[in-house]
Each structure stands twice: as structure tokens, then as C-alpha cells.
């Protein structure tokens, strides 16, 4: 990719001008934060609308549980800030840079939201969609607008922030975001069970998630990736007495699955870091992110293992990260058969040129989605070809 960059905007009016110019020139424009996820989607060469100038934290009052920041603010800055107040972004967003072969630190909060990035706590704490309260942005019409609000509870008008999360820069350029933040658990513990099969692990995780132990994250590394026996890991977070009590509850709930152990902080840190960096799946093989109901995850991986798939489960089985150096149609078919969908996160350029990053939708939904995109972007100024969208828009 050797896309040119436009002058970096620093005000909403700069963004309005850039979009208006692109509309007049009938040329596409790619909205970009830090570029950490630029390698997702088809190769393209649209000029870059660099949002990294919108990098200020505008308001943060921990007692209100609300933080407002420029969309280009680095995720690392926001994470450090909320951590300094013993708070967190509960959806556990992470930087895609390292898993796409780039240095860490470039990811911005706007990019994280636009890509709907959520880590292991997604299963208990909600996703990016659940923590974006409001935003200001410029649509493909070149008009500034606000949506949502800066308070934690609001049902006034359509919930456009939900659309923003996972919109991948196809609707509007966000300039400012308001996020819900939450207290960070004062303590954390990780319980493990070793040696379970994928089916047993998903059953064990379902049992734990269905118990009163309030499990915040549940993941599974098969033996091939865990270095020895397979690893089922369950994380609890909260106040000291509560964490201790809930570990005991997990032990009781999982008694029939085998011995439940507890790992030390360093080991636990590595387990959960692996789920963010996906180090166990490092390499160049195409990497897929497959969301399914947890109960169908074992059949999904069973269908793809004979073709050389390597994989791990997060979200108690509701998310499968999988590498497969083979027919992408097989992955999409297996995901659909498991009542889920697959995003192609990492792949060689040649493959990304042919295989859409996002899972194809049913016809009616695809048509509706195209109409919604056109509602914000009637001229397709944000249709860079990254999501093969030019082909299905009209």
C-alpha cells in the first residue's frame, strides 16, 4: 500500500473540507487512526484521512464513569489514564499492531471502537458497542453531527453509537468519543483445569459461566498450543474476599471436570496476554476471528482441524481465533454451520484481494446495510474497496 496522505486535520472543519473535496472529486477517502489495523481488508490506495490529530482527553470524571476523548487519542494513553484512577475500559480493547506484524502503541481509541475490538472480558463485560455512549463525527455528507450523549443512561433518539462500533470507517469520521468506564477489580485470580478436550472445556466453561462465581473471562488453549496439557483458564476479578470466595465456587462447580488449580500472577498474566497478542498463533498463516454460540465451537474446530487449523477459544468458546493455510470458503462454511461468522484478520495481500474481510451477509441484511451506509455516505466517499463494498453497494 502506498496511499497518499492528505494534510492532517486538527479541527472538525478540516475534516469537513477534506470530505467535501473528496466528494467533489468523486474520490474515496480512508479514515485512519493509528493504522494498526490497516492490514485488515483488501489492499487499496485511497488517500488517508489521518485522525491522529484528535488526540486530547477532553473530560474525565471517574465518579461519573464517563470519559470523553478525541478519536485519535492512543489507546495506551487512555488505558494508562483510567488505570491511574483504578478504572478500566471494561471491554478490554487491545492493540492489533503486534499480531499484524507492526510495533505496539499505534492503536487509537477511535480505531478500536470503529473495529469493535474487545478482549477476553467481552463475555462478561460487554463489547465496544456497550461502552460507547456518544460521539461527534463528520458523515460522508460532509456534515458534522453528534449522537448519543455524555451520560451513562440515555435512550433519546436512535442509538447511533451502536452503529459506530464495528463500522470500520464506512459511515463517518468520528472526531470525539464518550466512553463508559468502570472500576477495575482490585484483585484478580485465574483458576485452571488442565487436560480437557475441546468439548469438555466448553462444557466446563459453560458450567463456570452459569455458576454464581461471576467469571469475567474464560479461555481454552488446546494441548498443541499450551505446551503440554490443554489449558482451560477462568478469571475472576473484584474485591479480595470476593475473589477468594468465587475461586472456591469455581472449584466446586468444576469438580467433575478434574482438579482446579490456581496459577500465580505472572502465569495468569501470560495466559491473558496471549489472548491479546495471539502469540500462540503467530506467523503468517491466515488468521480468522470466528464468533459463534459457545456450544457450537467444538464442532467448528473439529471440522477444520483435519485441514491443519490451529486455534484457541476465548469468550467461553464464543470466540475462536483460528489459523488455516487453506481454502477460505471452508472456514466461512464451517463458521456458518456453527451459527456464526468469520472475519479474516491476517492474510497475505493476494488473499485479501479476493476474500472479503467481513463475513458475507444474507441478501436482505446486506441490502439494508448498504442502504444504511448510503444514508451516511450517499456518494460512497468512504468506500475504498477495503471491504469489497463497492461491488455490493449499488
Amino acid at each position: 500500500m502506498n496511499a497518499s496522505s492528505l494534510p492532517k486535520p486538527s479541527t472538525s472543519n478540516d475534516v469537513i473540507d477534506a470530505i467535501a473535496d473528496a466528494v467533489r472529486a468523486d474520490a474515496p477517502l480512508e479514515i485512519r487512526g493509528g493504522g494498526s489495523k490497516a492490514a485488515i481488508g483488501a489492499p487499496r490506495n485511497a488517500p488517508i484521512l489521518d485522525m491522529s490529530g484528535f488526540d486530547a482527553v477532553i473530560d474525565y470524571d471517574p465518579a461519573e464513569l464517563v470519559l470523553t476523548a478525541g478519536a485519535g487519542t492512543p489507546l495506551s494513553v487512555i488505558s494508562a489514564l483510567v488505570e491511574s484512577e483504578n478504572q478500566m475500559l471494561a471491554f478490554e480493547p487491545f492493540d492489533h499492531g503486534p499480531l499484524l506484524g507492526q510495533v505496539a502503541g499505534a492503536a487509537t481509541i477511535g480505531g478500536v471502537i470503529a473495529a469493535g475490538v474487545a478482549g477476553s472480558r467481552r463475555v462478561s463485560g460487554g463489547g465496544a458497542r456497550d461502552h460507547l455512549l456518544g460521539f461527534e463525527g463528520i458523515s460522508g455528507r460532509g456534515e458534522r453531527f453528534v449522537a448519543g450523549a455524555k451520560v451513562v443512561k440515555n435512550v433519546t433518539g436512535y442509538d447511533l453509537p451502536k452503529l459506530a462500533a464495528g463500522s470500520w470507517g464506512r459511515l463517518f469520521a468520528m472526531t470525539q468519543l464518550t466512553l463508559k468506564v468502570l472500576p477495575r477489580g482490585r484483585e484478580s485470580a485465574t483458576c485452571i483445569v488442565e487436560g480437557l478436550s475441546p468439548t469438555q472445556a466448553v462444557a466446563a466453561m459453560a458450567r463456570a459461566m452459569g455458576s454464581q462465581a461471576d467469571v469475567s473471562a474464560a479461555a481454552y488453549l488446546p494441548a498443541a498450543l499450551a505446551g503440554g496439557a490443554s489449558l482451560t483458564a477462568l478469571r475472576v476479578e473484584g474485591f479480595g474476599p470476593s475473589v477468594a470466595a468465587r475461586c472456591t465456587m469455581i472449584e466446586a462447580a468444576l469438580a467433575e471436570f478434574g482438579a482446579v488449580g490456581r496459577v500465580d500472577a505472572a502465569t495468569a498474566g501470560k495466559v491473558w496476554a496471549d489472548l491479546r497478542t495471539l502469540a500462540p498463533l503467530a506467523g503468517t498463516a491466515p488468521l480468522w476471528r470466528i464468533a459463534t454460540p459457545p456450544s457450537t465451537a467444538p464442532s467448528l474446530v473439529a471440522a477444520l482441524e483435519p485441514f491443519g487449523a490451529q486455534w484457541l477459544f476465548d469468550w467461553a468458546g464464543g470466540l475462536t481465533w483460528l489459523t488455516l493455510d487453506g481454502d477460505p470458503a471452508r472456514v466461512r462454511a464451517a463458521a456458518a454451520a456453527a451459527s456464526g461468522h468469520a472475519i479474516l484478520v491476517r492474510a497475505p495481500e493476494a488473499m485479501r484481494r479476493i476474500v472479503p474481510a467481513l463475513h458475507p451477509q444474507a441478501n436482505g441484511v446486506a441490502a439494508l446495510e448498504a442502504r444504511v451506509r448510503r444514508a451516511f455516505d450517499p456518494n460512497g466517499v468512504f468506500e475504498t474497496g477495503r471491504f469489497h463494498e463497492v461491488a455490493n453497494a449499488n
Partner: protein
Amino acid sequence: MKMPEPDQAVLSRRAEIVARLRSIVSGEGVIADPDALKPYETDSLTAYRQPPLAVVLPETVEQVSAILAWCHAEGVKVVPRGAGTSLSGGALPLADAVLLGMAKFNQIVDINYDDRLAVVQPGVTNLAVTRTVEDAGFYYAPDPSSQIACSIGGNIAENSGGVHCLKYGLTTNNVLGVQIVMMDGEVIRLGGRSLDPAGLDLLGVVVGSEGLLGVVTEVTVRILPKPQTARALLIGFPSVEQASQCVADVIAGGIIPAGMEMMDKLATQAAEAFVQVGYPLDVEALLIVELDGPQAECDHLCAEVQTIANTNGAVSCRTSTSEAERLAFWAGRKAAFPAMGRLAPDFYCMDGTIPRRRMPEVLARMAEMSKSYGLAVANVFHAGDGNLHPLILYDVNQPGQLEQAEAFGSDILRLCVEVGGVLTGEHGVGVEKRDLMPVMFSEADLAHQQRIKCAFDPKLLLNPGKVFPVLHRCAELGRMHIHGGALPFPDLPRF
């Protein structure tokens, strides 16, 4: 409140429309007799009444699809209705619209405890979901006060909350997927059984869309394991400022209670007179803080909250030691609305949200307004998330008092927006707050929302007259106004 002018051509076709509906839904599923239409003329915002053109109560998705497809082709408006418990007039009928009641969609379709979800039809009541799964130790978290009657379909339309949504979220945070019928009759599924959608989060827009985008025919909700224990504290403060600071300190201290409710003196006294549960009568503000989770966690947090309360000058503090006592603490809060009946013949319930740090100032200004309008106001809040429910007391039989109460209510909502808050935290815009939308949103903001409506329902036939103060035609909204110069080929249609 002005509703769209009824279409005389449609009114004159009433017999034909009823006959057509009867060809789709037989027997008692179509109601056209004027007396029988009476129960449908309002929802829970009873100040507004309008009998519909006709009522149709379909039982299958195919019938919903056929009804909508025919109305779409014929240009007949449709107002969807769940249980009719909307407090904002979301289900208020129109004289020239078919009222589509979803009450017969009352089946639980599937329960999957391993995936922690329930698939239900939209007419199932909120509480029925919990009743269905509670023996297995689960529940459905959103719990609007009307949960005994309100339907899941209505909850989707309104993005309903409840006293526990600070910790467990609104409806939108607890729904995985829906099947909806579009106005043209097309049946689609948004979301599914997995945590994230495959493409744009259209489900997220449908939730809270107040029946303007489609008719929900099936809902997949997340269910959660019921917490091991719940305990509540009942804390009295000599001032609202101290109670507010206590709320802020609890949250800043890293505690997210399952519920955190505040009542002012008038509300507290009225509730106590109504149910006699031992509320202190000499306090300016009463706080109920509920903590849930493992026993060890509840015990630990009850002690922490008590310490924070004492630091903030609490004059009384009781911690529930039994389930009966916990429920007694709540009984007064839950009776707050009916208790108002002892103070005045009528009350008008508002629903703004504010940044909590502005609470004392907002209450002081509300007290001034109360004086200038000559109408008393009692306050009940979801204090944890800053969602206010001021209850304006009035007497509809006193000439002009209803209008005064509505004007007072509008002033309160303007104040909420002025201090950085919103018009509605959980009741919805409906017809009630429709004309206040420009207080919170610019014309461009509203146009960006309305174009979504156009993407779903370009003829604007579904639930018109709600949410948006001006009914712009979609073609008009589609026009581009590009800053700094003209569009190339300005005459080309853009839609």
C-alpha cells in the same frame, strides 16, 4: 401535542382495509367495532387518546409480513403495540393507522443454558422470561418497573432499563438477536446467538427505535446466573448534597451496586405513609443501595458502603439481614408512584438523566420551578446513573393544571440537557418528548437519525408522528448540502 393530519383517503377506505386485514387474520384477530377499539386508544401515557383505524392481532410471522406488505403497497400507516405500557406514548394509535398488536406472540421458543440465552416471542412479558429460567438458577436482567406486564418486544422498542441497569445494562446490552419484519413485509434476522454481529450493528439501532424501523417477531436475549445473595442498605441523609456525595464516593471507591436509588423527603414520606416499612421521616434524602454477588462480597461491600455513608454524614443506616427486610426496603421505593395518589389526584413522571455531579444544583432549580409553577414535585432517582424521575403533582380537574404540569416537565427536561444530560434515560421519546428533541439535537443531528428511518422504511409508514418533531420526506433528507461548493450534477437523484 399535534399528531400528523389523518389521511382522509385512507379513512374513507376503512371498510376495505378491515376486509383485507380479515382475509389475512381471521375471526377475532381483527377488531373494527368502535367500542372494542376503546381499550387500544392509549398506552400508559393516558393524557393522549386516539382510537385506531382498526386493530389486528396476528399470530404468525407470515401474517405480520402479509399485513405489512399490503399496508406498504397501499400506503396505509401501521402503529405496532406490545403490552401498551409505554410511558411516552410510543404506542399511541393514529386515526388513519392500523394498530398491530403483538400480544399473541407469547411463546418461549428455546432456552439454552449452556449458551446462556433464551429465544422468545415478543409478546412474552419481561417477568415471564425470568420465571421460565429461574428454577435453573438464571434470570433476565433488565427489570423495568412494569415488568409484570410489559413485553419483551416493547422492551426492544424502548430499550427498557430498570433499577438494576447501572450494573447489568439496559435491554440493548442483554439482547443478542432479533427477527424483524420490515415495513415492506420482508423478514430478516439481525444478530443471532453469538456476541458480535457479522456486519454493521443494525440490531443496536433497532433496539430503542420505538417501533419506527420494523416489527420484532422473535428475540434472543442473554440470561444470567442469579447472584448468590443480595443485601440492601437503607441510609438517611440530612441533605441531598451529602446523599449525592455518598453516591459519587461509592462509585469512585470502585463499587458498582446492583441498584442505587434516592428519594427526596416528599417521596420518602409519601411512600412510608403508603406502605409503613420503617423509612426514616426526618431525613432530606433516603438512599437504598443494593449489593449482590457471593455472600462474602456482599458482606464486605455492605461494610464499605456503610463507612462511606458515615463519612458523608448519614444520620441513619440499616443493612438488611434477611430477604424479607431487603424487600421491605424496596417496598417503599416501588410504591413511590402509587403513593403519590395520597398527595394529589394526578402526577406526571419525568425521566431525564444528568451528570450526577450536577444533582444538587438541578434539585435546587427544580425546587424554584416548583414554587413558580405552584405545583409540588417529589423526586425519585436511579441515583447511580443520574436518571431522575421527578413526579409533578397536579389535579387534572383544576383548569389549566395539566398544561402547567406539562410545561413544568418540559422545563425540567430542558434543564437536564442544559447541564449536559438527556431528555430520556429509559422511558423513550415517543410523542411526549418529541417536540423537545431540538433542545438536545441540531437539525443535522436529527437528519442523520432520520435517514436511518429512510433506510428501513422509506415511505415513513411505521409509527409516524413519534420521536421526530418534523416528518421530512426521505427525498428531502437525501439532498446533499456540501460546504464550500456545489455538488457535481446537482440534478442527479442521489437515492
